[in-house]
């Protein structure tokens, strides 16, 4: 008797709209007019001449000596060691960034204290600072004349610290806006249902942050792998110990080994492309969730 006495509300309820309606109303794109068509043509040509064609040249040059030539250049002992060091360290640094980045974003969004604005500036410094200056900066504290007595100059840990520095902003800046937009009532609902603060964070907040964390982590990894300038003065570029992939590529260039340089560069390019695709996918998931 009970259940059937409650008829379901009318089936005429409209299906929920999937996308958040835009404030300005209407994001309808139009077809190209002649003016925008010209604009597109010129822009694409400029972009090709500056970016696409040169990057393509890297791949083409790298494969000039065929698959065996490519493979030899990449698996050369010193180069392989450099690649291992680069990828391995970038991976470790990314893991640290996932934790610290989320933590920093949390404190920036949920906490308020004197000097918070200064922290925001500090976080952006690695993004805007010239990389060679970053090397010098780290050297001041963690080098031979550093006041704390730690000296990482010319040691493998220098690579770790340098990567940590230059990748600092990435996870923070992808997570921060998502965290700021979170519906606080959802957390209240979780608490009213009996969940502790930690459980609420784990089951309700964190899942919504995962796409943003993943996007930031991917960018952080790519940035780390690509790094060059900060290591020039800090790591000593010691073969098999502190030499990273970008340094190997530069050596090849300076030795006029264009093919070898291009081959290794192609590896880095592949990583960059994978990163771009991943971030694109993740950003779309982020938008859809809204």
């Amino acid at each position, binding site marked *: 008797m*009970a259940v059937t006495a409650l008829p379901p509300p009318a089936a005429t309820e409209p299906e929920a709209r999937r996308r958040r309606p835009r*404030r*300005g*109303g209407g*994001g*309808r794109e*139009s077809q*190209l*007019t002649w003016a*925008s068509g010209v604009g597109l043509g*010129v822009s694409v040509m400029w*972009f090709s001449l*500056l*970016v696409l064609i*040169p*990057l393509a040249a*890297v791949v083409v040059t790298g494969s000039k000596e065929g698959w065996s030539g490519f493979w030899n250049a990449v698996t050369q002992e010193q180069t392989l060691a450099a690649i291992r060091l680069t990828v391995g360290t970038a991976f470790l640094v990314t893991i640290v960034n996932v934790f610290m980045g989320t*933590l*920093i974003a949390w*404190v920036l969004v949920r*906490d308020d204290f004197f000097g918070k604005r200064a*922290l925001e*500036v*500090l*976080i952006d*410094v*690695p993004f*805007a*600072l*010239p*990389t*060679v*200056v970053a090397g*010098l*900066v780290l050297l*001041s*504290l963690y080098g031979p004349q*550093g006041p704390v007595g730690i000296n990482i100059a010319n040691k493998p840990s220098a690579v770790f*610290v340098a990567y940590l*520095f230059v990748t*600092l902003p990435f996870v923070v*800046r992808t997570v921060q806006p998502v965290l700021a937009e979170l519906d606080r009532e959802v957390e209240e609902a979780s608490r009213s249902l009996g969940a502790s*603060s930690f459980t609420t964070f784990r089951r309700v907040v964190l899942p919504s942050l995962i796409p943003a964390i993943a996007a930031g982590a991917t*960018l952080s990894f790519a940035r780390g792998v*690509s790094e*060059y*300038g900060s290591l*020039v*003065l800090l790591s000593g570029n010691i073969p098999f110990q502190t030499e990273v*992939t*970008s340094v190997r590529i530069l050596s090849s*260039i300076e030795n006029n080994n*264009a093919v070898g340089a291009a081959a290794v*560069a192609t590896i*880095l*390019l592949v990583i*960059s492309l994978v*990163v*771009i*695709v991943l971030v694109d996918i993740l950003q779309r998931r982020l938008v859809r969730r809204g």
Partner: protein
Amino acid sequence: MADVLVDDRPTPAVPPRAAPPRRPSARQLERRSRVVRYALRIVVVVYLIMLVGWPLSLVAQRALGNGLDDIKELFADPQMMHAFKLTLFAALISVAINTVFGITISILLVRYEFPGKRLLNAFVDLPLAVSPIVVGLSLVLVYNSRSGWFGPALEGAGFRVMYAFPAIVMATTFVALPLVIREVVPVLQEVGTDQEQAARSLGANAFQRFRRITLPSIKWAVIYGMVLTLARSLGEFGAVKVVSGNVLGVTRTATLAVEEKYLNFDKPGAYATAFLLALVSVACIIVVSLLRPKDQG
């Protein structure tokens, strides 16, 4: 089915008459969460100071160790002045190019539909993920005057690109390419087409709409993008190193000067130059941070 809905069972989930002492009270929970909050805050502050804050201040200390003498020496050196001017010019041109093309591409990506749009959207982000050495290499491969794809042809027409100023401009423009676009695109999406459509209905043509409606609505985004582009362009090192040939007095930029001075045991000079570059970068960040309204990250 009916009886499960009428709640006549003893309610096991209801707490007993007197709240059991082991259940933390609201005050206790609040205190606990305050401790957690302070702990997190301290961890974050210490991390940021140890990684960024303290090292940065040490550079300032070293650079200003002899007062302003080290810095004044830089300005007295004609080759350093050339390096500064070179860096500045290249950066300004990069800002100009990236602003014009950045705005154009942003509008195309947000307001128009065309084949390959999604590809362009993704590729625009490439420069952020590519290593500067790879950037330099790619430009050399195409534009060097001996074996490059276009280099010899350009050389024949009288344009020396590689190992000269144009190459520096190209490398600088390449690395900073996405910055204006990433600032403008979200704003364009947020603002929507309503105003532009209203303007069209009132008789405005495309150029008028662009100048009077679109441009003002993205004004601040463009400014942020330009400042970030400036900082990035002034600071480029790896790509410039590859394409410039690092010829003293001709193609040596300020960042290259830092490396060279340090390796030639001119530490005061290196620190002074580094300090100036850091000063400009931090100034750029602070300017953007001050200009941005507080609620945007």
